[in-house]
């Protein structure tokens, strides 16, 4: 609850802040700028507008999904099904594109993706099943549905030069790549929703203390249901970007993405126990992951260095977060 109070009662932050608390609160932002500085100094290609937008664009798929998942996690649940949901949605929109045209394919894809999201929401919100088990099961189930749908085949958009569907993944608006724009705009909207609407506050409340929220008259089941609808919605937006960028899809295109999404959310300091978190910090978390990947490849380092560095950064972020909360670097018992 403490984190919740901090974010809603600005007056509290006037208290004296220890250096540890400062790093715990702003560590992620510092890490972000540290990454930028290190990569800028070590490679001359890194610091350019082009490369910056490229990184944001590369982060946009994982990032857009992470926005919705942040709500789920703040509400005290997990969503591991987003990776295969992304595969499903992308396969669907790409396959339908050639069959019924993009104008019909996009709404249909949204409908079916939200339908699956509502199954998650129903099982976890109304039946109160454990979210880890439900979404882990959904991960395989959705993968299965996708495989049955395609019969194992890759799907492609046959005429990728002549379709307006390409704006979502390949277009530019005011010199900014559209995927980056979708990501940033969704982030701003959802940050406002999280902080300025009653829905956002209620999600904090059910994640922070479900019982207290219940006694305060909040409908936990409906709120949890909505968070899963939201994560399905952002996953559908990501599928739009992916399908348009690649102009095709394969059954397992989103395999493992759920963990990258979760890594971004955790890196952003959202507590896995629920009750605290922020969209802006999730954005920074996802961007750090993308920066590490981009920067290390520009430096010509082998791929496994990315895994190692990513792991170190996540551990450092989680440690700082916990250390700031308990006021000490090490646990005394």
């Amino acid at each position, binding site marked *: 609850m403490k984190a919740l109070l901090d974010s809603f009662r600005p007056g509290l932050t006037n208290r004296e802040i220890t250096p540890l608390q400062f790093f715990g609160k702003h560590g992620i932002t510092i890490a972000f700028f540290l990454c930028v500085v290190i990569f800028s100094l070590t490679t001359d290609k890194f610091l350019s507008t082009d490369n910056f937008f490229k990184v944001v664009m590369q982060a946009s798929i994982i990032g857009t999904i992470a926005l919705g998942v942040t709500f789920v996690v703040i509400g005290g649940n997990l969503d591991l099904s987003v990776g295969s949901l992304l595969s499903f949605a992308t396969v669907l929109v790409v396959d339908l594109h050639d069959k019924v045209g993009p104008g019909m394919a996009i709404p249909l894809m949204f409908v079916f993706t939200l339908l699956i999201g509502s199954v998650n929401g129903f099982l976890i919100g109304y039946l109160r099943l454990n979210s880890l088990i439900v979404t882990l099961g959904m991960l395989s189930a959705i993968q299965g549905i996708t495989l049955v749908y395609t019969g*194992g*085949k890759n799907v*492609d958009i046959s005429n990728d030069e002549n379709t307006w569907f390409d704006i979502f993944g390949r277009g530019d608006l005011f010199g900014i790549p559209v995927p980056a724009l979708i990501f940033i705009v969704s982030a701003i909207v959802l940050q406002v929703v999280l902080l300025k609407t009653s829905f956002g506050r209620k999600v904090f409340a059910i994640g922070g203390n479900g019982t207290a929220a219940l006694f305060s008259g909040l409908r936990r089941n409906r709120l949890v249901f909505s968070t899963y609808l939201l994560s399905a919605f952002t996953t559908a937006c990501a599928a739009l970007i992916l399908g348009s960028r*690649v102009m095709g899809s394969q059954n397992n295109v989103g395999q493992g993405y759920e963990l990258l999404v979760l890594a971004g959310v955790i890196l952003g300091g959202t507590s896995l126990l629920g009750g605290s978190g922020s969209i802006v910090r999730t954005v920074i978390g996802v961007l750090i992951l993308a920066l590490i990947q981009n920067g290390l*490849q520009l430096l010509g380092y082998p*791929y*496994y260095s990315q895994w190692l560095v990513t792991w170190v950064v996540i551990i450092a972020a989680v440690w700082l977060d916990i250390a700031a909360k308990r006021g000490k670097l090490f646990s005394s018992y």
Partner: protein
Amino acid sequence: MKVQISSVRIIQHIGKISLLAGSLTLGLSGMAQAETFRIGITQNNVGVDSYQTTYEQAFKDAADETDNVETVVLDAGGDVARQISQVRDLIQQQVDVIIIWPTDGQAVVPAVKRAKEAGIPVVVTNSNIAEAGQPLIAAFSGPDNIKQGAYSAEMMCDQLGGKGEIVQITGQPGYTTAKERQKGFEDRLAEVCPDVKILDSQPGNWNREKAQRTMEDFLTSYDRIDGVYAGDDNMGVGALNAAKSEDRADEMIFIGATNFAVGYEAMARGEYHGSVYQSPAEDARNALETAIAVAQGKEVEKMSYFDTPKITRENMDEFEKPVF
């Protein structure tokens, strides 16, 4: 949780009953025809991609067309444990030959050993098992990935005119196919084209989106790239997408492997320059033929590779568009 466990048991029971029924019908038909060979196959993960889906269909078709062959076609669904129990079932059914498409080249070795001890020869198909298992198998049937890599190197060398700087996008790290193609490519390139330099190699995980991202970073890193070698066409087309979006595709030669339909189409448009044609149907037929030869007690090559020719813009008319 209790409910879940019992449902898994029920599924297992159903599986066993259907296997039993399968073997029963096989047994009956076996009685009718004395000379019939029974060949059991446990595949890796049918349905996960078009290659494996087409393979299974072609395998069944080829078996139907061949006289005196009965098959038990199983699929491990990518699960090593299930594959091992399927091998055990096939041993119990006393098939004449077991064909395995390994889910894991290392973990299936004990199952292969058990089959050999039971006197049933094993043919490994598509991707080979670990070194430790090699003495235990009757034959390996599949593509020669080292040679495929070498073919790609030769095409790259030809099209670049012997000089240039290229980047490489490899498959999933740790996969035998990815490693062998990379090795075949790099070794052969050094032989035929010592003046072609590989600037960098990064994995694309057999994923087009990932390959596209990798290529975008290559494009930032290097102001001049003369060629791209991708471990399969799916990733190769991802690289092509990235280069096209920055208007730099024209300056590059794109060479892939395992010709996909998208690669074939891009080749027809003149944007994609070479690949290796690997037919899943050919793969399946080769496995069945090898297994039959083993069952008949004939001498077979330990490494029974099927032909995977080079495909370029010049000769692409000779090939049908891939189904995947």
